[in-house]
C-alpha cells in the first residue's frame, strides 16, 4: 500500500509538470486558435536562458547573492521570452493571418526547429543546472502507518503550489480582465474581434509572452529537478495528450488532464509495464487520449463545437 501511494504521488507530481507545459499550449490556443507545437521548444529556450543568465550575472556584475542573481536571470529570461513573442508575432503569425489551422501548426513546427537550433547556438548544448533554492531533501509522511513512510520530494510540493497558483491567476486573468476578454474574443473569431477594434497584433504578443512566462516557470521547475538539456523539448510531446485530454480551451483542464495522465502513466508503468516488456509510458497517454476522444471528441473540459450547415 505504501508503495502504491508513493507511485501515486510520484505520478501526481510529474503530472503537475506536464500540466504546466500543457497550460502554455492551452493559453495560445485559447487566445489565438493556434496549436502551438513550439511550446516545448519555448520551455527549453526559456530554461536555457535562465540557466545561463544565472551563471553569467554574478560574473558580470560581481554579485555574490544567489537570490539576486536568480532574480536578475529571471527578469532577463522573461525579457528574452517577450522579445521572442514579439518576433514571432512580427515575423511569422502576423503574416499568416487567416490561414488554415494546419498552416499555422506547420509554422509553429518551423519555429520549434528554429528555437531548438538558435537556443543551442547561443547558449551552448551542454547540460546546465538551475538552482533557484528549491529544497531538495525528501520528506517522509505517515511513518506510523506504513513501514518507512511515504517518500515525498519537497521540491515537488513547491512545484505543485506554484502550478496551482499559476492556474488560479491565469483563470482569473482570462475570466475577469478586459485583456482576458479581448484574448477570448480573438480566439473565437479574429476577424470579428478585429472589426470591433481589438488590436490583433498586440493580443498575440501578449498571449505569446504569457505563454513564454509559463514556459519559463515550467522550465525552471523541470530544470532544477533534472537539469537543462535538449531532451527538455521532448516534453512537448508528453504535454500534447494532456492538452487534448483536458480539452484545448480549458486551463484547469490542462492541469487535471496532466494529473490524470501522470498518475495513469506511473501506475501503468509500474503495475502493467513488466507484463508487456516495459516502457509503455511512451504511448500510454496517447492511447488513453485516443479512447477518450472516441467517447468525448472535445476532451474532458473542452467546449463542444457544433457544426451547422
Amino acid at each position, binding site marked *: 500500500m505504501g508503495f502504491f501511494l508513493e507511485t501515486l504521488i510520484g505520478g501526481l507530481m510529474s503530472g503537475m509538470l506536464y500540466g504546466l507545459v500543457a497550460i502554455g499550449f492551452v493559453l495560445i490556443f485559447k487566445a489565438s486558435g493556434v496549436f502551438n507545437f513550439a511550446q516545448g521548444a519555448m520551455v527549453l529556450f526559456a530554461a536555457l536562458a535562465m540557466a545561463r543568465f544565472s551563471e553569467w550575472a554574478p560574473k558580470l556584475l560581481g554579485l555574490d547573492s544567489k537570490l539576486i542573481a536568480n532574480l536578475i536571470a529571471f527578469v532577463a529570461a522573461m525579457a528574452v521570452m517577450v522579445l521572442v513573442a514579439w518576433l514571432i508575432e512580427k515575423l*511569422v503569425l502576423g503574416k499568416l493571418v487567416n490561414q488554415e489551422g494546419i498552416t499555422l501548426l506547420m509554422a509553429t*513546427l*518551423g519555429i520549434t526547429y528554429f528555437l531548438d*537550433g*538558435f537556443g543551442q*547556438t547561443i547558449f551552448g548544448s551542454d547540460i546546465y543546472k538551475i538552482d533557484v533554492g528549491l529544497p531538495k531533501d525528501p520528506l517522509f509522511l505517515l511513518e506510523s502507518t506504513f513501514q518507512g513512510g511515504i517518500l515525498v520530494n519537497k521540491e515537488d510540493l513547491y512545484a505543485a503550489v506554484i502550478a496551482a497558483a499559476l492556474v488560479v491567476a491565469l483563470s482569473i486573468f482570462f475570466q475577469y480582465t478586459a485583456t482576458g476578454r479581448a484574448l477570448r474574443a480573438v480566439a473565437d473569431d479574429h476577424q470579428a474581434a478585429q472589426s470591433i477594434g481589438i488590436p490583433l497584433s498586440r493580443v498575440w504578443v501578449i498571449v505569446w509572452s504569457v505563454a513564454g512566462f509559463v514556459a519559463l516557470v515550467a522550465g525552471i521547475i523541470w530544470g532544477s529537478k533534472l537539469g537543462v538539456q535538449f531532451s527538455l523539448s521532448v516534453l512537448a510531446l508528453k504535454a500534447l495528450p494532456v*492538452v487534448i485530454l483536458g480539452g484545448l480551451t480549458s486551463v484547469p483542464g490542462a492541469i487535471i488532464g496532466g494529473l490524470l495522465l501522470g498518475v495513469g502513466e506511473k501506475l501503468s508503468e509500474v503495475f502493467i509495464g513488466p507484463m508487456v516488456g516495459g516502457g509503455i509510458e*511512451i*504511448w500510454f497517454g496517447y492511447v488513453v487520449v485516443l479512447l477518450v476522444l472516441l467517447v468525448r471528441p472535445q476532451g474532458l473540459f473542452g467546449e463542444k463545437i457544433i457544426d451547422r450547415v
Partner: protein
Amino acid sequence: MLYRENGQFKTSYRADQQVFPILQDRVAIWGLILLAIVAVPMVAPEYLFRAILIPFLILSLAALGLNILVGYCGQISLGTGGFMAVGAYAAYNFFVRIDGMPVVVAILMGGVCATVVGVLFGIPSLRIKGLYLAVATLAAQFFTDWAFLRIKWFTNNSSSGSVNVAGLNVLGFPIETPAQKYLFCLAFVIVFAVIAKNLVRSHIGRSWMAMRDMDVAAAVIGIRPVYAKLTAFAVSSFFVGVAGALWGFVHLGSWEPAAFNIDRSFQLLFMVIIGGLGSIMGSFFGAAFIVILPIVLDNLTVALGFDTALAAHLTYMVFGALIVFFLIVEPHGLARLWSTAKEKLRLWPFPH
C-alpha cells in the same frame, strides 16, 4: 507559342479524359521518365544514388501517400513514420518467415498490413477532426515505435533489436548495386504515381476532396463520410507502408525502429506542405526539396568553417526558418509555382 492547348481538339471520350490533356505535357513527362530510366543510371555517380536519388524516390512515394490523406482528404496525420515502420517490419516478417517469398510480394504485403493498421488508427477520424486528430495519430507513431522495439516477435527475436535483409532479387535479377536499387524504387514510384493520379481524379478522389472542403456539405450531397475517410486512410497507409518497406529493404538494408521515428513523420509532413497540399507533382517537389536541403546546408556550413555541433544547430535554424518562409510566401507550395509557370508559358510571349 510552344506551349498551348489551342488547336488540340479532343474528338473522343478517351482523349478528353487523358491525364495530361496537353501534348507538350505528355511529351515532357515521357521524356522525364525515359531520362530517369535510361540516362540517369548510366551517368550518375554512386554517391548521387545513395545519398539523393534513392531516398528521394522512396520519400516521394511516402509523401504521395501522405498527400492523399492530408492534401486530398484534409485529415492531418502525424503518424506517418509509424505506418512506414509497420510496412517495413511486416514486409520483413513475411520475407523472413516464409521461404521463397518474392521481394515484391513481401513489400506489397507490408503495404497491406500498414493499410490495416492505418484504417484502425483512422477510425477516430470519424469522430474527431483537425488538430485533435493530428494528436490522435501521434498515438500510432508512439505505439509502433514502442512495439517494434519491445516486442521481440516482430524483429524475429533479433538480439540487437535491429533487423536486416540481404540478397534481394526480382525474378533472378539481383538488387545490389545502387543503380539496380534505384531502378527498383523507380518502378514502384512510377506505378504508384500513376495509380495515385488516377485515383484522385476519379469518383473516390472527388469524394475525398469534398470531404476536405466541407464535410457536412459533402455528407448532405450523399458522400458517405465513413467510406471517404477510411478509404483515404487505407490508400494513404498502403502507399506509406510500401514506402516504409522500400526504405528498410532497399535504402537501409538493416534498420531499427529509430529509422521511423517522429522526426520522419514531421519530415514527410514538411514535404507535403512545401511541395503543395493536394498535388501529385507537389509531393515530388517537396521530397526533392527536403532531401537535398539538409545535404546542401551541411556542406555549406562545414565549408564555411563552423565546427560540426554549431553546423548542426545552424542547419536546424535554417531549416525552421525556411519552413516558415515558405508558409508565408507560398502557402500552396512549390506545386503552385509550377502551375504559375505553366500559366505564364501558355501566354508567352504575350503578357495577356
